[in-house]
């Protein structure tokens, strides 16, 4: 992160050793503002006739944080997707990805309020382009875990006192809306993303993770539970009516040149039959899948990776809904990532999409650059 206001450590050392009277002063934080950002540009070329390539400034994000004192910090990400927004509504998006105030009581306990990232999976919380392989985010992190998933709420996070390496986050946020659910993208368009969101279904989401204190391994488990009526009384009057439950587990392992990742998730849509009847949709009653990825840095700064995703947005369907095996997807991505610095990346990959029905298949070449600072 670049600093608007530079930190000066040297003077504080004098205070730090001068005695207890000055110690408090030394530990006091003066207000400061931090600016940073990330972005990515993509070249996408689907294989086949009449599918010309496209270039797109996929994301441009400004990170802005302000520290008010030792305990209170504001953090935000303002994003422009697809370079520009031009009325009437032809593509592009300007959105806040996160905007919250943290009140830090201790290492074990921080109170967080505002528009927060849902702590499910790997990519949703850590999505800066140099942090993952492949030009695009994994398809699983679009159709099963709907990244970038953010909602408004209040929560707590910190270190768990059980042993070194344990962390938790627990948030109460606004719920999803079932009227946005779909056969192909599951719960994705049920997100409210902080815009005049219905609070008819306060939902609970959380994560527990363990990082090996010596480094190299991080594993986590996440959940989401809550109603999805969005205030539509035809779907229910209770705050947890038409509930969905998300359970997910993930792991990241790194040793020398080898890096491995794995994520699985299952989404249960309890009243999918009612939702489908009411909104004319074909939402699966269960959406599930996961992926495995291995990468190897065979030359300094240059890694080759392969990822295999399997997921189905209609893993189960309710009575009255016809299952389309075209939603049972297998995505294999092979590619290269060149990172001249840890926070910049040049990427290239080839993706093969296959479905159980043999419909909607395709192969795509992608090239891209990404940065964060």
């Amino acid at each position, binding site marked *: *992160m670049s*600093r608007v*206001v*530079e*930190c*000066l*450590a*040297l*003077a*504080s*050392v004098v*205070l*730090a*050793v*001068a*005695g*207890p009277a*000055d*110690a408090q002063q*030394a*530990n*006091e*934080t*003066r*207000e*400061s503002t*931090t600016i*940073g950002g990330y972005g990515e540009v993509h070249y996408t070329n689907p294989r086949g006739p009449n599918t010309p390539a496209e270039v797109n400034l996929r994301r441009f994000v400004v990170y802005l*944080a302000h*520290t008010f004192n*030792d305990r209170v*910090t504001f*953090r935000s990400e303002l994003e422009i997707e697809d370079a520009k927004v031009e009325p009437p509504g032809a593509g592009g998006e300007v959105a806040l990805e996160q905007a919250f105030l*943290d009140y*830090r009581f201790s*290492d074990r306990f*921080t109170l*967080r309020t505002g528009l927060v990232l849902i702590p499910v999976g790997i990519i949703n919380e850590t999505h800066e382009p140099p*942090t993952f392989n492949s030009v695009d985010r994994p398809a699983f992190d679009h159709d099963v875990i709907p990244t970038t998933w953010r909602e408004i709420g209040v929560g707590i*996070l*910190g270190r768990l006192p059980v042993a*070194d*390496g344990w*962390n938790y986050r627990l948030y109460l946020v606004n719920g999803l809306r079932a009227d946005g659910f779909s056969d192909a993208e599951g719960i994705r368009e049920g997100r409210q993303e902080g815009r005049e969101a219905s609070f008819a279904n306060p939902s609970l989401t959380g994560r527990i993770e363990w*990082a*090996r*204190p*010596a*480094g*190299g*391994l*991080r594993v986590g488990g996440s959940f989401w539970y809550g109603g999805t009526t969005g205030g539509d009384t035809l779907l229910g009057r209770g705050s947890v009516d038409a509930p969905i439950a998300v359970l997910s587990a993930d792991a*990241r*392992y*790194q040793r*020398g*040149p080898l890096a491995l990742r794995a994520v699985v998730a299952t989404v249960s849509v309890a009243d999918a039959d009612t939702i489908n009847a009411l909104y004319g949709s074909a939402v699966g009653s269960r959406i599930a899948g996961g992926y495995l990825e291995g990468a190897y*840095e065979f030359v300094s700064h240059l890694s080759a990776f392969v990822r295999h995703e399997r997921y189905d947005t209609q893993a189960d369907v309710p009575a009255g809904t016809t299952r389309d095996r075209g939603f049972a997807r297998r995505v294999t991505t092979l590619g290269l990532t060149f990172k001249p610095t*840890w*926070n910049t990346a040049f990427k290239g990959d080839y993706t093969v999409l296959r479905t159980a029905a043999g419909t909607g298949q395709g192969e795509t070449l992608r090239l891209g650059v990404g940065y964060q600072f």
Partner: protein
Amino acid sequence: MMQGAPSAKVAAAVRRIFGPGAEASPLTVAADTVLRVARGDSLLGFAAVRNVIGKDQPITFLVAVDPADRLKDVDVLVYREPYGGEVVYEAWRRQFRGKSIADSLRVGREIRVISGATISVHAVTLGVKRALADLTHWHQTGAIR
């Protein structure tokens, strides 16, 4: 923005690293402050307390070297970020012990990556390298003794 660590924390870190009875006294060199650590008349080494920026918060750490300019230990005195706090653990920090400016300290090679704490790992590693280089330079040129 001026941030440090409570003096008790610095003193405790010095005693943990150099043993009981180790006393630190500040020296000023090149507009920076170095702690000279001694027990009685015998010099045990030097230490520097510094900050590096993580994602948006300063990470206050202490780097200690022995009189032969080898890194004795690193201590993270104050960690303020909500994530990436694994850099405080001894199991990760101990990788720096015994290193000198002749050794390379590259993240992903000599220094293990902590997935999900990338920014903090890079920030602390760079901060330690700079502090080690400064302390070694000042000691070898006689600016601190």
